[in-house]
């Protein structure tokens, strides 16, 4: 087990390095000047611009810049934002908790909805309940997150006036009223992502459980006289979750993509919103760092899924 985890880690690190290299190469070779922000100001004379390039190290060839950038990144120095003149790592650390909180809570909500829904619709296959759940999952899976967000805003903020739709990032939770405020402003972003996760997961759980239920070992468990609950939850479900874990890992990039959209709709100050804003202002150091953070998150969760896969399925012994 320990060796397996170590081997997966050894694969994850080159993956991250490769991603960072590809991304840096794209940024460096792109037909866009990182100094275009200064370029629009005609008062900056060419020699000053040259000095700025030198000060930022932009006159060196890009492979050298890449090595310097990646060594600095590993040491936690993400560079300085062109726009706000503050350190990129400060910007990211301020916002990362918001993203992880929204994505994480939404995922928990998604699992809490999907597990019972998926189990019920697989066990009671073709019942009215199954049709309701399957159709709901289908709809939830086909509505893009940005449209769900807009619909929620139209219904709950504009028509019913129950919830505000701009996320107040200055709110600090100190007492009960502020906690309620925090909950109220988090409900919509979390439901948008949570419902999408729930829809995807329900389909996976249902499909996987349906493949396991007709198998011999389930019949044996029934024949032994075990109760329905034990057969489904202890025997069939455990085996069904193994492929689900892989599918979840493959879906991680989509989940973070959804987070970018959700943060943009509700103005949640997370790293997705930071990315979109920085792209708008041409703030290359921030863009590069945020993409790397996303890549690290995706690779990290894939690693976690691989390890979970090995824990869940003792048959798996990669050589």
């Amino acid at each position: 087990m320990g060796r397996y985890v170590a081997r997966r880690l050894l694969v994850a690190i080159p993956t991250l390095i490769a991603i960072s290299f590809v991304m840096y190469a794209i940024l460096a070779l792109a037909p866009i000047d990182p100094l275009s922000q200064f370029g629009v100001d005609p008062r900056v004379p060419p020699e000053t611009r040259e000095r700025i390039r030198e000060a930022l190290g932009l006159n060196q060839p890009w492979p050298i810049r890449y090595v310097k950038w990646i060594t600095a990144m590993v040491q936690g120095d993400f560079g300085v934002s062109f726009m706000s003149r503050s350190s990129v790592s400060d910007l990211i650390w301020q916002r990362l908790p918001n993203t992880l909180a929204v994505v994480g809570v939404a995922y928990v909500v998604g699992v809490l909805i999907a597990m019972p829904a998926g189990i019920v619709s697989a066990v009671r296959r073709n019942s009215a309940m199954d049709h309701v759940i399957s159709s709901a999952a289908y709809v939830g899976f086909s509505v893009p997150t940005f449209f769900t967000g807009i619909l929620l805003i139209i219904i709950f903020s504009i028509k019913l006036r129950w919830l505000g739709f701009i996320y107040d990032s200055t709110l600090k939770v100190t007492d009960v009223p502020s906690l309620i405020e925090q909950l109220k402003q988090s409900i919509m972003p979390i439901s948008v992502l949570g419902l999408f996760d729930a829809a995807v997961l329900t389909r996976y759980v249902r499909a996987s459980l349906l493949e396991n239920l007709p198998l011999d070992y389930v019949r044996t468990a029934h024949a032994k006289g075990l109760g329905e609950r034990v057969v489904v939850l202890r025997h069939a479900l455990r085996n069904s979750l193994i492929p689900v874990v892989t599918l979840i890992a493959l879906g991680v990039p989509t989940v973070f993509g959804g987070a970018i959209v959700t943060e943009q709709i509700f103005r949640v100050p997370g790293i997705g919103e930071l990315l979109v804003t920085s792209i708008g202002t041409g703030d290359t150091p921030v863009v590069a760092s945020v993409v790397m953070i996303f890549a690290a998150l995706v690779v990290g969760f894939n690693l976690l899924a691989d390890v979970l896969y090995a824990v869940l399925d003792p048959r798996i012994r990669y050589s």
Partner: protein
Amino acid sequence: MATAQVRLGAQPAGAEVARPARSLWADAWITFTRDRLAVAGLAVLVLLSVAVLVGPVLWKQTAIDFSRALQGPSLDHPFGVDDLGRDLLARVLEGGRVSIAVGITAVLLAVALGTAIGAVAGYYSWLDNPLMRITDLFLSLPVLPLLLVLIYLFREALQLALGAQLGVFIMIVGVIGILNWMPVARLVRASFLSLKQREFVEAARCVGSPDGRIIFRHILPNVLSPVLVAATIGVGAAIITESTLSFLGLGFPSDTPTWGRLLFDAVNYLDIAPHWAIFPGLAIFLIVLSVNFIGDGLRDALDPRRKI
């Protein structure tokens, strides 16, 4: 020919009333039409496609009229109007052309790339490992952030080189295609790995068929149905991706009203003109839902384990 006659002659007289032979595709079509949801999906998709193809020719209300800005749906303007007083039905129809074209072209690119890479990886075992490592690498890319970055970097250059609309179209199709070929590649590789061990491939090799012929004539047709299913569902995903990019303000310029772009423009007027957001959003939802239903129906219909 001779064997067929011998067999016919050997059959008892009663067997001749048996139904005429059906091809695999006819079988699949019959299974498909029994799936009510898939048929409904197909109907909606055909309806939407015809509407966006023919609609802009019949419904020509593109005038700007500030006096009616932001009005809700009415008989003259079934979907209402936007902030410049433009008819939204006309814009939704026109935008649908772009959204659907992007979805289909991007998927064609992704399927072509994925099939080529999967076929090579599955057929030539010495290329399998490196190609699959690359596939894994692409699978762990943060797709949406990278799409945003690529578009931010290359939009202006391509717009200058190819013109505003065509440049953005090629760029969006290109980046969606390049970042979405991996599932198809895995699928094709897995099928190739199992198919190339089979007797008919061995037989083809024995009679001296070159690799290209074995790949294209013997193996590839057997891989077609899973690829078709993946492609169908991919169209829905590509339409969502394009809308997401436009919705984040990084897709088409505002004079090209794709469905995502319409939503992007509508977001600031949600309180006074919710209709502006609802109709393009519903259009995206409907087309993705119908494409998904068709994909599921095709999967069941093309699955050889589920014979009628």
